């Protein structure tokens, strides 16, 4: 895994990381657990408007969305909306995903040190840093939520524009059409800012604040490289944006199940992209460490 030449070659580093991810299934295993939990939540939400779960979820759905959303086909719109909900996914990322991403990083570290990749040991190590991982996970989440809020303000301003031709109209259309792509870019930017916090906690056994300092130290010399490295795998998400935008436009003509299917694929794809992100950047972090 260690090769100093590869540290600044994005494609070579990415290729090595993806190969590592698939050749050492132990690294992938924590992400499979995350995917399992996501699918479990999806199934519960899928059956939420039906008996017997409707007994619990029915009043919540009726109150928050309206009684009509307890019935087909509207229930699928809620399924997609709730499952991809920012609050739910952020909460999961901080509470649950953080410790399993940490576990995966501990496994990469073990493999890099020619030690056996044992899930139990890696999980133990990650769990012992749970509070720091939780805090480390909350930073990109908070940044993303803040940037999304600002982005929403821009969208709200664009919606006020009444022009149907000319420069203002072009600005309005650009802001509205680019919104989901902009959101992806903001997510990549937020992740870039704190991507080395997890490796610093797990690899160097640092606490939250020293890990944050180490993160910025690494990022200081390689911000654009890191951004590019995270952007490349994130581009896998582009077809999902196109499909979800198109299915929303042709809501009347597509089967509602498609909304549910796209939501679950989108979330699973995000987890897979996270797996590539953290494997690549942990590899880079370890290579940089070896260089020093």
């Amino acid at each position: 895994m260690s090769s100093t030449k590869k540290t600044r070659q994005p494609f070579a580093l990415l290729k090595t990381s993806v190969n590592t991810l698939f050749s050492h299934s132990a690294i992938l295993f924590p992400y499979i657990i995350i995917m399992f939990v996501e699918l479990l939540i999806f199934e519960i939400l899928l059956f939420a408007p039906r008996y017997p779960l409707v007994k619990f979820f029915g009043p919540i759905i009726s109150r928050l969305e309206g009684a009509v959303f307890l019935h087909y086909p509207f229930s699928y719109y809620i399924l997609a909306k709730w499952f991809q909900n920012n609050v739910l996914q952020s909460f999961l990322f901080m509470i649950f995903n953080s410790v399993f991403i940490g576990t995966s990083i501990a496994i990469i570290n073990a493999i890099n040190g020619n030690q056996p990749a044992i899930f139990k040991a890696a999980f133990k190590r990650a769990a012992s840093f749970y509070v720091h991982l939780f805090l480390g996970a909350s930073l990109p989440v908070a940044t993303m939520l803040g940037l999304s809020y600002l982005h929403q303000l821009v969208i709200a301003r664009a919606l006020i524009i009444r022009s149907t031709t000319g420069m203002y109209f072009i600005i309005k259309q650009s802001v509205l059409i680019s919104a989901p792509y902009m959101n992806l870019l903001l997510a990549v930017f937020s992740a870039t800012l704190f991507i080395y916090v997890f490796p610093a906690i797990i690899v160097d056994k640092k606490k939250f604040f020293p890990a944050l300092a180490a993160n910025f130290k690494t990022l200081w010399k390689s911000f654009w490289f890191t951004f590019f490295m995270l952007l490349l795998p994130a581009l896998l998400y582009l077809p999902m944006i196109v499909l979800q935008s198109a299915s929303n436009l042709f809501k009347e003509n597509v089967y509602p199940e498609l909304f549910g299917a796209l939501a679950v694929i989108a979330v699973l794809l995000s987890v897979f992209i996270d797996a590539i992100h953290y494997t690549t950047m942990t590899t880079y972090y370890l290579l940089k460490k070896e260089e020093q």
Partner: protein
Amino acid sequence: MKKTIILFVVILGVLFVGLSLVDTSDYKLEKKLWQAQKQFKEIEQDPKAVPDQNYEDLIAQYRKILKQHPEAVLSRKIHNKIGKIYILKKDYVKARSSFQETISQYPDDYESHAKSLILIGQSFEMEKKYDEAVQAYRRLMNDYGTTDLGVNIPLYIMHLYVKLNKQEDAKRALQDALTFYSNKVQANPGTEIAFKSKRLLAASYFAKRDVKNGIATLGGLLTEYADSEYLTSQQMVLTVKTINTMSVANLKDFDTPIAIYQDFLNQHPTHKYNGYLQQTINGLRALKDKGVDVRLQPVVKKKPNVQ
């Protein structure tokens, strides 16, 4: 690790199958009806271009759903849906027979009966058999007058006669409507049906050009239903705007609406709509002081340019 992954798949599979099996809701029926409705909409877009087989397939689909879910409440709509397919096919006799099935098969479902009778009436109208249409509407009025559809039908009959240019019949229908709504108001005090009937009674007075009685009825509606859930904000605004329009534009009378609203304010000093009513009173007073002449805008039909 493989064992764990298999365990995950089994858990997800068992949960899915388990929840599907214990599901006793109408979810599957809703899905089937939605799919059938989708096909109906496709046929509805261009009924002439659709081959006969498509109509028959859709009817067969509906009958199959009915057979699979005979007891479900949603299934009660299926005969009417089949009837609507026959309407698109212009097979009015079969359509009416299907609508009639709803009435005979679900004797306790008044709302569905009312819907069937409306559809029967409409099918007669499409065939220009107006006497039969009115007969169906009158049955709806007499037997299902407390349903949502039934309460609106007396005025509809009047409008139908006006459309057919049968002035004498329209007058009689209007008189019937006035009697119908007055009876409903008296027989069901404080109920939703009485609230709707009172509103429609006012509309009937306006149709009779008895504007004063119409305004008085609406004024009474406001006071009587001030604390009722039926007087929603939309109903409040609609009623106030109707009173203002009819009184100011028709009778040049600013004082009656002001008196109605003032009376309301005095009787209900802490009512949530008081701010709105006070604003309306101020507006009306300002218009009166300025001597503004408010008129209803006549609908002007644009004449084509003739050279």
